[in-house]
């Protein structure tokens, strides 16, 4: 399956460094105190965060004691299971895009520079290959040349971009994009929004407005609201996820820029505290560099030798 392979490849670097070291730790036969300290250090350095790291290690310790585990390799299996159960905590909810609809609306949000526009291009390409007729809505009318940037990507992905002039009302762009999608029989609208810091009250209100305009035009829209997170982001990602979830009910995370050396470990905290699952992983600058997130492959990949 291409997606798993791609995800594994993108994690190769991650694996080679930090999580690779975890495997190294567990290779050394018996469980002792150093093991737990090193484990904490490694998880924290992967941006998993203090709280989540401590709770993970605590749970593994508990189970090791309860189940009478003595071998480090068995402890590794337990850790893997606990990490997996964190990410899969919300796995009961099937991806909302599986249902057949006349028009599916996907809203893409995030802070400045997280990689929204590039991710949207990749999403457009991905869904187009799955047979969707995709239209992009360029509602970032604020940042200089954001519309041009989306148009270039739209051309590369072979999809239509609906845009107004710079400075236009984002709500009006969404309205037009949906109307025009309905008219031309498109099956999916992906809405590119302007980057905004989650602490900016007025900008978050604007986002709520964009969402409600979509909701009024299409039943149950937006059907998916994706938060694009930069994998290099630290603990602030939790605050981002919390604020965006509150404003526009984020249904999934896209972890962008995972092809660097950053681990993106903060998604464990986001899954644990907010129950928001990761949907996709961005693995490069090319339009094909997007992989469907699969918790098992992700955690498995972190441990693979």
């Amino acid at each position, binding site marked *: 399956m291409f997606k798993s392979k791609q995800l594994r490849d993108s994690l190769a*670097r991650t694996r080679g460094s930090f999580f690779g070291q975890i495997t190294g730790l567990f290779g050394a036969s018996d469980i002792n105190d150093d093991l737990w300290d090193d484990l904490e*250090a490694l998880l*924290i*350095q*992967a*941006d998993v*965060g*203090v709280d989540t790291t401590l709770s993970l290690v605590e749970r593994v310790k508990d189970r090791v004691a309860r189940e009478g585990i003595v071998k480090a390799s068995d402890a590794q299996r337990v850790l893997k299971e606990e990490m997996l159960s964190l990410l899969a905590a919300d796995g009961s909810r099937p991806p909302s895009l599986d249902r057949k609809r006349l028009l599916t609306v996907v809203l893409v949000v995030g*802070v*400045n*520079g*997280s*990689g929204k526009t590039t991710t949207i291009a990749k999403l457009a390409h991905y869904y187009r290959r799955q047979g969707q007729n995709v239209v992009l809505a360029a509602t970032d009318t*604020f*940042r*200089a*040349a*954001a519309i*041009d*940037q989306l*148009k*270039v*990507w739209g051309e590369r992905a072979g999809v239509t971009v609906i845009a107004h002039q*710079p400075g236009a009302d984002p709500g009006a762009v969404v309205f037009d994009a949906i109307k025009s999608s309905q008219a031309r029989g498109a099956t999916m609208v992906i809405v590119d929004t302007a980057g905004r*810091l*989650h*602490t*900016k*009250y007025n900008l978050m209100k604007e986002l709520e407005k964009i969402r409600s305009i979509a909701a009024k035009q299409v039943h149950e829209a937006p059907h998916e609201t994706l938060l694009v997170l*930069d994998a*290099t*982001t*630290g*603990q*602030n*990602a939790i*605050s*981002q996820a919390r604020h965006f979830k509150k404003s526009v009910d984020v249904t999934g995370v896209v972890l962008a*820029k995972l*092809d*660097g*050396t*950053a*681990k993106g470990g*903060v998604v464990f905290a986001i899954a644990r505290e907010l129950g928001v699952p990761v949907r996709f992983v961005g693995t490069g*600058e090319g339009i094909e560099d997007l992989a469907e997130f699969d918790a098992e492959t992700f955690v498995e990949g972190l441990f693979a030798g």
Partner: protein
Amino acid sequence: MFENLQDKLQGVFQRLSSRGKLSEADVDAALREVRLALLEADVNFKVVKDFIGRVRERAVGVEVMQSLTPAQQVVKIVNEELIATLGEPARLNLDGPAPHVIMLVGLQGSGKTTTASKLALFLRKSNHRPLLVAADTRRPAAIEQLQVLGRQLDIPVHAEGTDVPPPQICANAIKKARQGAHDVIILDTAGRLHIDEALMDELAQVKAKTNPQEVLLVADAMTGQDAVRVAESFHQQVGLTGLILTKIDGDARGGAAISIRSVTGVPIKFLGTGERSGDLEKFHPDRMASRILGMGDILTLIERAESTLDQEKAQRAGERLLAGEFNLEDFLEQLGEVKKLGPMSQLLEMIPGMASMSRSLPPDLTDQQLRRVEAIINSMTLAERRNPKILNASRKRRVARGSGTTVQEVNQLLAQFRQMQRMMKQLRGGKGQRALANLLGGFR
């Protein structure tokens, strides 16, 4: 979460020996909390370890000063050490013969293009003639973005499309700058991963061809543990001279600043504080330290108040307040001024110790209350605002109806206003003068 490290440490010390010298046990207990606070702020794990080691060395055996509690003493040492680590704010190096070249480098999405235009505006304000150079030939519409920003600010942009190699574009830009009498050239390079050898090599070529006086790493304040590796790689391969920390206007604690400083030793030159071209500020190590420790940002609040509020109006209101003439009309005017500073929840975040409280309030609530207060006062006649005493039951019913509130709410507002007036009277009476002085002294 560590809203206020000092409160947290206060708790730790209540359980420990309280006065005299700081014992090893005292310090270790306190430093555990400091360590967690720093890790929560995204300071790199290894950097935290070194830092804690340094503070421990300094703190053990230190005499607790008369005026301080042990918690304050530890926070003082931590704070001093943090400020020292963050280093003095540094100016742009524009010495020697013009044109001076400033090269901006960084990861994708860190904010290089926006920062380039901010720098250009900053330089023009200080009587330079900057030239912006669009050397990002990779990201779609990056060149257009810089051109649009240049047009908005009326600052020229040198661009040669996407087919010319960036080192060539930059070299050409220097020639053009000489012809056009530009004395500063700002190179906006493409975002790249620090592990992308081909692209890092390209940066080295740009550097070799342009001989920049400043190579500034543009880094996102939200960066996590990886900041160390990114900064190290860029420093090794291109040689940095400074750092610009962007998106500091969010709620990130900005521990990356410490991490990057620790591994590169280069000074922090500017902070990016917003999306507009004017939003570039000088770096203040003391404020950054408070922020990283989660101790609020009262100085920024004061500065923002000073730059936003109408000084004359405030002065007049203050005089009327002290003269006992402050009425609901003045109050309404002041409310309008405060609202300009931003939503209440955001203001509370900046006050030490208030961050946790503001988080527990629904963000709309405080602002909603403000709106109600405004509505109530707006529903009063001028005479009523100037002399609230004339508000009898019938008038109150009218005001409540007009503002969509209840008579109770109107009464509540009036009661609060009377209380405020009483407080002012006491202050005028001299007894309060000292209390007020103390209060203000706490902010200095």
